């Protein structure tokens, strides 16, 4: 079971993962699962009908908009980073939070490194499966590096121009 770090109220904690990642060609175990968009589009209705919590995994070239109608029923969206430098999921995460008001977990999976923690947190990610062995303390530390931010994003940090207006 890979490490799962969750961000809650600005604190980063180690969490137990209730979900199992399931590849397209694997059979489904019981319980809560994270499946690909393709598989969800095929089997999602059935799985949700079984009372499981279902998470959908999006690859960088898959857009959050594809889940627009299903989001209220999804517990989790996993956004995959094949390479940490591929920044498409930052857009997906913001769209999920800001446009669709998604309240479930947004989890970063794949080449997930702590130096990107603040970008991820600000874009609305609240769970991480780090690939570099980093700890919750290290993740929290990175998210706290900057006393100010300049632009609004998916988190609740006040942008500088609003701070100035006070």
């Amino acid at each position: 079971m890979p490490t799962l770090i969750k961000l809650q109220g600005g604190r980063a904690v180690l969490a137990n993962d209730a979900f199992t990642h399931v590849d397209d060609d694997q059979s489904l175990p019981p319980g809560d699962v994270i499946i690909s968009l393709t598989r969800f589009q095929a089997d999602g209705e059935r799985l949700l009908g079984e009372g499981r919590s279902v998470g959908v995994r999006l690859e960088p070239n898959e857009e959050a908009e594809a889940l627009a109608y299903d989001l209220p029923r999804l517990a989790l969206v996993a956004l995959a980073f094949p390479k940490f430098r591929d920044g498409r999921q930052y857009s997906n995460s913001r769209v999920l939070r800001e446009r669709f008001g998604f309240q479930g977990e947004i989890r970063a999976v794949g080449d997930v490194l702590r130096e990107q923690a603040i970008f991820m947190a600000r874009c609305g990610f609240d769970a991480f499966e780090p690939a570099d062995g980093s700890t919750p303390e290290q993740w929290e530390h990175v998210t706290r590096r900057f006393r100010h931010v300049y632009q609004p994003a998916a988190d609740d940090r006040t942008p500088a121009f609003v701070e100035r207006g006070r």
Partner: protein
Amino acid sequence: MYRYDAIDKEFVADRAAEFREQVNRRLAGEITEDQFKPIRLMNGLYLQLHAYMLRIAIPYGTLESRQLRRLAHIARTYDKGYGHFTTRTNLQLHWIKLKDAPEILDQLADVGMHAIQTSGNTIRNVTADPYAGATADELDDPRVWAETVRQWSTLHPEFSYLPRKFKIAVTAAAKDRTATKIYDIGLHLRRGRGGELGFEVIVGGGLGRTPHIGSTIREFLPTRHLLSYLEAILRVYNRHGRRDNIFKARIKILVATLGAEEFARQVDEEWAKIDTSRIDLPDTELARIRGEFTASFETLPPSSAVLEAAKAADPAFARFLRRNVHPHKQPGYAIVDVSLKTPGQTPGDMTAEQMELVADLAQRYSGDDVRVTYQQNLLLPHVKLDDVPEVWRQLAEAGLATPNIDLITDIIACPGLDYCALANARAIPIAQHIAERFADPDRAELVGELNIKISGCINACGHHHVGHIGILGVDKKGEEFYQITLGGTPEEQAALGQALGPALPATKVAEAVEQMVEVYLEERKDGERFLDTFRRTGVAPFKEAVYADAN
């Protein structure tokens, strides 16, 4: 000019602290080079041929004297006592050690400077007209908008891992002194029908392997919606820009592939979904930023007896006035160029001593304001006419008064193979050879406006595609060869240069330039500049002259 408030100061201090931590992790082996490299680049630190190179941001090319002095101090303390100004109005130091970088960033933060996002697949330094705030020829001060974009783009969490680098330029004058048409986004300030201010938004310009002139995707965007509209453009690019091939990853490729119309439609579709009230700056913040750029001037007579006397007495000063001094919007003032193109010197280089001198001149004679131009020169934007003779005298003593702005010896050249890990050939010696041939100021003036731009490789940091004469260094079996293009320009009728003929060896380039100048001088009519004559005659007479003995 924009002075950092407490928030800005804390931000750059935090950034410097972050980088210190990251460097320490790298030196201790806790993070691999692969993981560290993008981080290092996001702080402007390249590894080049001889050492690390640090690219320090000079937002929209504007500096206070204390900042220029700090750059001199850093160049002297951590480098070899000089720096290089780039076509993106940043400063490069070519001999930096990684272990010194955190201390350097701390010292920069101290004076409101940084190296944030001067490299990497991020939104880079925003450039603007170097005459901003000094020219009568502008609808608004473009730096207001450049600063707005700078803040919004700084550590933007969604756009820090783009497919490729992203460059934005702003101009508000009829004459584009910022080459906005070869930018990823060029913003031209315009007046709407009702007199309100807005931007013509031009997207998809860029040089490199596949040069493009930008396309207008929106004729008029009200200024208050600048940031939300930029978010829409960047989101479309972040999601759909190619990531499979670095030579096809810029937004210019996306715009070309979709077509400007479809691209504009996708941006509009995205923009319609954005909560603009959250992203766009409130009027209070815009007014605050604008207030930072309001300069006050004295009421002076439009001419200066002191200046006129000096002009009459000294033909060298008269020449300097002709070439390096420009009208200011305020009567009694002038804009004064500082040439970093003394023939024989490395174009764009400046010693620490020269920086300190110009810092003093800026403080004393230019409202504590000095600008960097994209042609790798500096300028003092607000000099009283009465003070111009003294300023000239001091510049001349320091070797900064060559009267050659926009002339044939005002050459743009990238550092090239002498420094850069990406280069195929050297650019600096080519620039030096050409400049030495035209060092005679009478001859240079006779030739008139001629912008030569030299790049050491296809990445085109020397902007050769948009040179009146463009020179691109290529490698031919271990020897340095150069392809020449003619008729490029980034301005109004922007155009890419046309190839002259087969590449020439290094030893033939300066000669070829002389031959082409001779053709121009013979062919020109009625005050035509080189570019005008070329547009009339085409490549043929130039090609014939250069390759005459090839048969």
